[in-house]
C-alpha cells in the first residue's frame, strides 16, 4: 500500500508543471509579504539615521523586556512634553530640528505614541481588563446557576479559567505578528495550488481512458482510489505547511526581526479576546496545523466533486466556484456573531483568526464547545465523509470480478462434466 501511495504521489504531483506553479506561487507570496511591509508598516522608511526604523530600534533597547514603573515613567517623561507641545497644533513643522529624534516634533510624538505609548498602555492594562472579564464570568456563572442554565454556567466557568491568569508582563515589538496573523493572501494561493494539484487525481486517467485498464489490475479499484486520496492528502498538507513556513520566514525576513514571539497571543490587539492562551510563536505553529486541516477538508471536497467529471473542465470550474463561495461567504461573515456559519465553512480554518480571535462557544449536547474546536471537528468529519463517499462511489476492481466470474464458470464446468460422466456411467 505504501508503495502504491508513493507511486501515485510521484505520478500525480511530481510533475514539472506543479513544481513550476509551486515555485511561482512561493515567489509571488514573498513579493506580497514584502509589499505588506512597505504598505502597512511605518518602519519601512529606510535606514537613515532619522528614519522611524532607526529611531524605533534605538529606543527599543531601553524599553524591551519586563514592563516596570521606571520604564513607564521614563517613556512618559519623553512623550508627555511632546504631546503637550503639539496638543494645539501650533508647534513648528520644521523637519530638521536637531533636538528631535526624527527631525520633527510631530513625527517624534507620533512614533512614540504609536509604537511605545499605546502598546505599552494596552499591555499594562490588559491584566485589569482580563480580571474584569473573569469577575464578570464568575458573577454570570452564579446568576445562571440560580436559573438552572447549566450550559451557561459551564461556558462562563471556561471563560473564567481562560481569562483569570491573563497578563502581559513584557514589552516587545508585536507589529510583525499583527500583520502575519492578518495575512490571508497565501491561503488563496494554497487553495489554487491544491485545486490544480488534486483536480487531475481522478480525471487524468479518465481523460486517457486508462481508468478501465486500471480496474483490471490487482491493485486497481478501491485500493488505487484510497492510494490516490492518501497521496492527495499528503500533497495538500505539505503545500499548506510549506506556505505557512514561507509566510513566517518571509515576514521575519522583510520585517527584519522575529522579536515578540514570546508575547502572549492576546498582546496583538485584534486578539484581545483570543480563544486560547498561548505564545505568539506557538500560535504560528498551531495556525499552520489548523490551516492544513482546512486545506485538507476543502481538497477532499474538491476531490469528491472531481470524481464525477470526465474531463477536468467542469470539476475545475465547479471546484473553483465552490472555493470562491467558501472564501467570499467566509470572509464576509467573519465579523458577524453567527458562530455556526464560521464553524461549517472550512475557510475559517484557513484564515483562522476568525476562530481564534474571539472567545465564542456553541452548545453541543449540554456542553459549551469553543468555536475553533467545533470547526476542527466539523472539518475533519466533512473530510472523512468525503473520503467515505469517494470510496463508495469509486468503481470496484474488475480483476477480482473477472476472477470470480471465471472461477464460477470453472466450478459450473466441473459440475457439468461430473454430471455428464455420471449419466454416461449409468
Amino acid at each position, binding site marked *: 500500500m505504501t508503495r502504491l501511495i508513493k507511486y501515485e504521489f510521484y505520478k500525480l504531483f511530481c510533475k514539472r508543471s506543479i513544481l513550476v506553479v509551486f515555485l511561482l506561487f512561493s515567489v*509571488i507570496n514573498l513579493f*506580497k509579504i514584502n509589499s505588506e511591509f512597505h504598505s502597512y508598516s511605518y518602519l519601512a522608511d529606510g535606514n537613515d539615521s532619522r528614519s522611524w526604523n532607526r529611531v524605533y530600534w534605538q529606543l527599543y533597547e531601553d524599553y524591551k523586556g519586563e514592563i516596570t514603573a521606571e520604564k513607564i515613567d521614563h517613556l512618559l517623561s519623553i512623550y508627555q512634553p511632546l504631546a503637550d507641545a503639539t496638543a494645539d497644533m501650533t508647534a513648528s513643522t520644521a523637519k530638521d530640528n536637531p533636538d528631535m529624534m526624527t527631525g520633527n516634533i510631530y513625527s517624534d510624538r507620533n512614533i512614540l505614541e504609536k509604537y511605545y505609548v499605546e502598546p505599552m498602555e494596552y499591555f499594562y492594562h490588559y491584566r485589569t481588563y482580563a480580571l474584569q472579564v473573569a469577575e464578570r464570568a464568575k458573577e454570570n456563572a452564579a446568576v445562571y446557576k440560580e436559573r438552572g442554565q447549566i450550559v451557561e454556567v459551564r461556558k462562563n466557568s471556561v471563560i473564567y479559567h481562560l481569562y483569570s491568569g491573563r497578563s502581559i508582563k513584557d514589552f516587545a515589538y508585536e507589529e510583525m505578528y499583527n500583520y502575519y496573523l492578518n495575512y490571508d493572501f497565501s491561503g*488563496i*494561493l494554497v487553495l489554487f495550488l491544491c485545486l*490544480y494539484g488534486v483536480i487531475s487525481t481522478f480525471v487524468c486517467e479518465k*481523460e486517457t481512458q486508462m481508468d478501465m485498464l486500471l480496474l483490471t489490475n490487482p491493485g486497481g479499484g478501491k485500493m488505487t482510489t484510497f492510494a490516490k486520496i492518501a497521496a492527495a492528502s499528503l500533497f495538500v498538507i505539505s503545500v499548506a505547511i510549506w506556505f505557512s513556513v514561507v509566510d513566517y520566514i518571509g515576514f521575519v525576513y522583510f520585517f527584519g526581526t522575529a522579536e515578540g514571539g514570546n508575547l502572549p497571543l492576546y498582546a496583538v490587539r485584534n486578539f*484581545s479576546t483570543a480563544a486560547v492562551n498561548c505564545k505568539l510563536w506557538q500560535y504560528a505553529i498551531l495556525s499552520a496545523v489548523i490551516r492544513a486541516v482546512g486545506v485538507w477538508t476543502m481538497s477532499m471536497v474538491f476531490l469528491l466533486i472531481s470524481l464525477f467529471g470526465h474531463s*477536468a473542465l467542469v470539476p475545475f*470550474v465547479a471546484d473553483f466556484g465552490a472555493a470562491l463561495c467558501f472564501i467570499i461567504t467566509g470572509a464576509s461573515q467573519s*465579523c458577524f456573531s453567527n458562530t455556526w456559519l464560521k464553524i461549517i465553512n472550512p475557510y475559517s480554518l484557513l484564515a483562522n483568526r476568525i476562530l481564534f480571535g474571539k472567545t465564542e462557544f456553541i452548545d453541543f449536547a449540554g456542553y459549551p464547545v469553543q468555536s475553533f474546536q467545533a470547526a476542527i471537528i466539523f472539518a475533519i468529519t466533512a473530510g472523512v465523509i468525503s473520503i467515505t463517499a469517494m470510496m463508495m462511489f469509486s468503481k470496484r476492481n474488475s480483476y477480482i470480478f473477472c476472477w470470480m466470474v471465471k472461477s464460477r464458470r470453472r466450478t459450473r464446468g466441473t459440475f457439468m462434466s461430473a454430471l455428464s460422466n455420471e449419466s454416461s456411467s449409468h
Partner: protein
Amino acid sequence: MSGFMYEVKKIMLWQRGLFYIALVLLLGMVWLALSDNPVDIAMEQYKNEYEWYLEKVNGYCTEESSLYLEQEAERIAKAKERQNSLLENYYDKKISESEYKKESREIEKVLEHQNGFEVIYQQYLYICENAGNRCFLQTNGWMGLLGKGTLNFILFLGILLIVTPVFCSEYSCQMDTLILTARKGRKSALYKLLIMIAVVLFLSLSISLIEYGFYRFKYGLPDGDYPIQSIRYFADSSKDMSLLEGYVSIGLLRMFGGVFLTILLMFISVLTKKYTLTLLTGAVSVMIPYIGLSKTSFYRLPLPLPFLLGTDFFTGDIVMNDALTGDEKIIFAEVDTVTLWTLLFVSVLLCTLAVVWILRRNSNRWLIKSGQKKCGAVFVVMFGLALAVTGCAGRGKKGSVVYNSSAVYDCMGYEIIRDEGNFDYSLKNTSTGETYPFARSPMFGVFSDDEKICAFYVCPPYLYYTTSVMESYVNRVGNYNSNITKVSVVELNLNTFEEKTIFEQMTNSGRSLLGIDYETGDKWKFLDFHHAFFLNDDSLFFIGNDGITKVNQYTGKTVKLDIPANGNISFDGESIFYKNEQGVLTRYDVSGNETYTYENIVAYDFCIDEQSIYYVSRTDGGDLYSCGKDGNHKELVSHIPAMSVTCDTENIYVLSKESGEEIVLPKSH
C-alpha cells in the same frame, strides 16, 4: 455544411456552449436583480419630491439655480419655524381656525417637497465643489450602471467554461494531430478563434445591455450627455466625457477584456494542451492580481483583469490622509489617457501575437517550414507579457406588548438603569437590589470603547437591546475600508438570562473583502443613528432622528415610514401611535399600512397602555385625559396642567407644568 458550421455545431451543442451562454445570461440577470440596492436610498424614496426640484435646476449649476436653492433653503427653514409658532398660537386660541387653516395651507405648500429638497441640497453641495463639470441629475441609475468597479464573476467563470474545451477537448483525445493532417486544418483553428471571439463579444455586449435595460427600467438613466463627474464615483476624474460615453467606453473595454481573456485561454491551451493548466492560468491571471495587487498597479498591467473591470480607467485620483501622520496617501492614481492607449496597444499587440502563434501552431504540417520560428513566436509572446508586466507597472416571534418610547420600564421585577458615566445599561433587581449588565458576554465592552448598547425594548419575558460594535485593523494604513460597524439586535430572556442575536447588519457602505473594495449603498446607514426600537413577529422598527424605518427580519427589506420621530412613539403590536406634524394623535396600522388620525386629540404628549390612551390635551390647556384606542370614551384624568405623561402597569406619571414635579396618579383614579 461548411467547416465553419461544423465548428459552430461542435462548440455550441457538443461542448454545451449554448447551455453555458444561456446559464451565464440567466444567472447574471438573477444576480443583478437580487444584489442591487440604490446607492442613494433617500433619492429613491422621495423620488417625486426630488424630481420636483430637479425639474427646476436640472443641468449645470448656474447662478440662478444656486440662488433658487439657497432661497428655497431659507424659505423651508422659515416655513418650519412659522409652522411651529402657528400651531402654538392656534392651540393657545390666539388665532381662529380659519386663519390657522389658511396659513397652514400656504406653509404646507412650501414644505410639500422638503424631503426631496434635502436630497437635492446634498447634491448641490457636491456640485459646488467643482461646478464646472458636475450637473444636477438622477444619479441612482448611473451609479448602479457605472459605479460598481467589481468583477463579474459569473461572466468570468462562463468564459472559462466555454473557451477552455475548444482546443483542450481535441488535445485530450489526440484529435489535434488528425486535424493537422486534414486539408482545412489551419482553417479549423481560425474558425474556433472567430467563433469564440464572437461568443465572448456577444456575452459581454448582452450583459452590458441587460445592465443598461435593468437600470433604465428600475431607476431611469436620464441626461446621458452630462459629464461623468456628475456622479460621485468619478468625482475627480480628469477625463472629459459624458455619462453615456463613459458607459459605451466601459462596455467596449469590458468586451475587449473578455476577448483578451479568451485569447489568453486559447494561447495557454494550445501551449500546454491540458485542461488543468489552462484553467489554472486563466483563473490565476485574473484572481491573483485582483486580490494581491493594489488597484493602481493592476490598472497598469496588460492583463485581461483591468479591461474586465473597466470602470476605474475613468475615475480620478483617490487621496486620503494618513490617520496617524496626516500625510496624504494615494489610494488610487488615475490612469491617464496616454497610459490607457499604451496599455490597450500593448494588449492588442499581445493578443495579435498570440492569435498568430495559435494559427501557426495549428497549421497543416506541410506548411510549417521551420520549427524554430514557432518557438520564437512563443518566446516573443511570453517575453512581451513578462516585459509588460514588469515595465508597465505604475508608480505609484414575540407576544404583543405596549411600547412607549418615552416610558421608563419596570419589567418582571427588574428596573433598567443607565450609568451616567460610561452609558452602560444594566438591570437592577428591585427586590434584592442586585444589578446585572445587559450584555451577558463578559468580554462585551471591556477591551474596546467602540462596543456599546444603543437602545432597548421590553416584551416580557424578553428584553431586546441593540448593540453597536466597531472593529478595525487599526494599524492598516492604506486599507481604509477595513473599518466595520455592525449593529445587532439581541434577545435576552429575563427568566433564564439566555441571549440570542436575532438580527445583525453591517452599516458601512464602503466595504473590503480580501483587499477588494466595493460599495453596497447606504441601505443600512440609518442603523448608526437609531436611538430606540421596537418589534413584532416579523418586523423591526428603528426610531432615528428623521423617522422610523421598518425592517423585515426575514427578507431584510427596509421601508422608511412617514412618521415624525420628535415626540413619543407608541406601539401596541399592531399599530404605531404618534403625533403628526400638527400635533394630532395618529395611528398607523403596520400590517395594513393604513393611517388613522384622531381629529379630536391634539396632544402635547401621550402614552398608551393595553386599553387606553392617556394624553395631555393641547386644546384644553394641558389637562390630562384618557380615552379608548378608538378615540371614544374620553375622560378627564387630571386638571393639573401637564407637560408630559408616561405610564406603567399601575400608575400614570405626569410632569406638572407649573411646579415641574412628577405627580403619580393611580390608574384607578
